[in-house]
């Protein structure tokens, strides 16, 4: 069998292998998005609490590692996960187009495929565009006129005081929630772990992340934090 093994496509070259890559990279990104939301809840404990947390993120790993090394390590893992997730999605989409070169002429009547599963591509693109804007707004401060590096609390409030920005955040998080509703279920199917708990997990996970994230712009808009 060893001779046959050497001729075999690499795991990532197969579609099933790309789905494992999507599941694992998706799981990494899900872990990040959950921790990101939990960390930001510090905004409700006041400016010092949030800013100290932001400073701590740069210090983790010290003194074993120089300042910001672990942070950059995590950023590298996240970037790699994003790249793999998008590459696999693109390659699988192309494969699926080739699998049905002649489309149905009559209108399809879907029974099980839901809004979330059929819009993964679009919710994914919305989330990517949102993340780019989010970095410009709250990491680099490019789109935030009152940006002060290091004063996370102030930057967050200055950003969300602009109503269109706050509304955009809420809408983008809705797209993220729809993406997670299918993704957090689908990843277990791709990895071969099945059971009725998957749907409850996906709903719970998407709801927690979205509710947490959406609460920040709403809290600023309604003056809960200022």
């Amino acid at each position, binding site marked *: 069998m060893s001779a046959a093994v050497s001729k075999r496509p690499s795991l990532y070259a197969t579609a099933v292998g790309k789905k494992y890559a999507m599941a694992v990279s998706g799981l990494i990104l899900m872990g990040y998005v959950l921790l990101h939301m939990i960390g930001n809840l510090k905004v409700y404990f006041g400016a010092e609490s949030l800013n100290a947390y932001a400073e701590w993120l740069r210090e983790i790993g010290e003194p074993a590692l120089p300042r910001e090394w672990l942070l950059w390590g995590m950023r590298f893992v996240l970037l790699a996960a994003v790249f793999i997730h998008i590459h696999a999605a693109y390659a699988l989409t192309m494969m*699926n187009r080739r699998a*049905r070169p002649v489309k149905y002429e009559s209108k399809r009547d879907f029974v099980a495929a839901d809004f979330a599963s059929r819009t993964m591509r679009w919710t994914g693109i919305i989330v990517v565009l949102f993340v780019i804007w989010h970095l410009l707004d709250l990491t680099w401060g490019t789109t935030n006129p009152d940006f002060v590096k290091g004063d996370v609390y102030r930057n967050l409030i200055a950003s969300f005081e602009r109503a269109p920005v706050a509304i955009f955040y809420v809408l983008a998080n809705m797209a993220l929630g729809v993406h997670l509703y299918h993704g957090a279920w689908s990843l277990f199917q*791709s990895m071969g772990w099945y059971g009725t708990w998957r749907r409850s997990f996906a709903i719970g996970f998407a709801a927690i992340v979205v509710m947490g994230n959406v609460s920040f712009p709403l809290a600023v808009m309604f003056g809960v934090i200022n």
Partner: protein
Amino acid sequence: MKLTLKMWRQSGPDAPGGFQTYVVDGVTDEMSFLELLDVLNEQLVGEGEEPVAFDSDCREGICGSCGVMIDGQAHGPQRGTATCQLHMRLYKDGDTIVVEPFRSAGFPVIKDLMVDRSAFDRIIEAGGFITAPTGSAPDANLIAVPKMDSDRAMDAAACIGCGACVAACPNGAGQLFTAAKLAHLNLLPQGQPERQRRTIGMVEEMENYFGSCTNHRECSAACPKEISIDFIAMLNRDYRKARR
């Protein structure tokens, strides 16, 4: 009842196809969908036209020959039945029904509603053999199989290979068929010696013809045997383990 049928007509594999509209009168509740097509064909032959080509054999839902897209659903709107078991009592006088062949790169159209599903045979071939002693029949129950396992293997073995899963899948994936064929052997002791080789062979052959699974679950909804997508999860797990 009187029905309007929008039928896909295509004279050959490379010929351009298109919808033709026919009106069929005298359709009764008890007719199956295939009998509706028979009535239409008799009418067409009577008018000196070419009858509509479609596959059918057993007409009792077990052979897997029939299968067309009816109003955008593989095997039509009724769950858990093949086209031959879809009865006209579901429709009412004056309805318009759109009928199209299954569409997939792996299922090229032969003529009208007939498609070539031999890609499924290639997948089965890629699975190879199972080691079984030949000669006189072994004693029954010589190999103990847990009831749960034999039940699940039988659920998977219910697959009739009709191709509705591929037809219904928005991605044109062949996962449910391949998963069912894998599971009915992989779940049983008799299937263990070649389990890894079979899984790798069938999955990789499948990917030569069909799309990838994005877990829409549309296949299982269209399946006349209502085969669960849990078998697709088993395929994903077995392939991962086989490649390790």
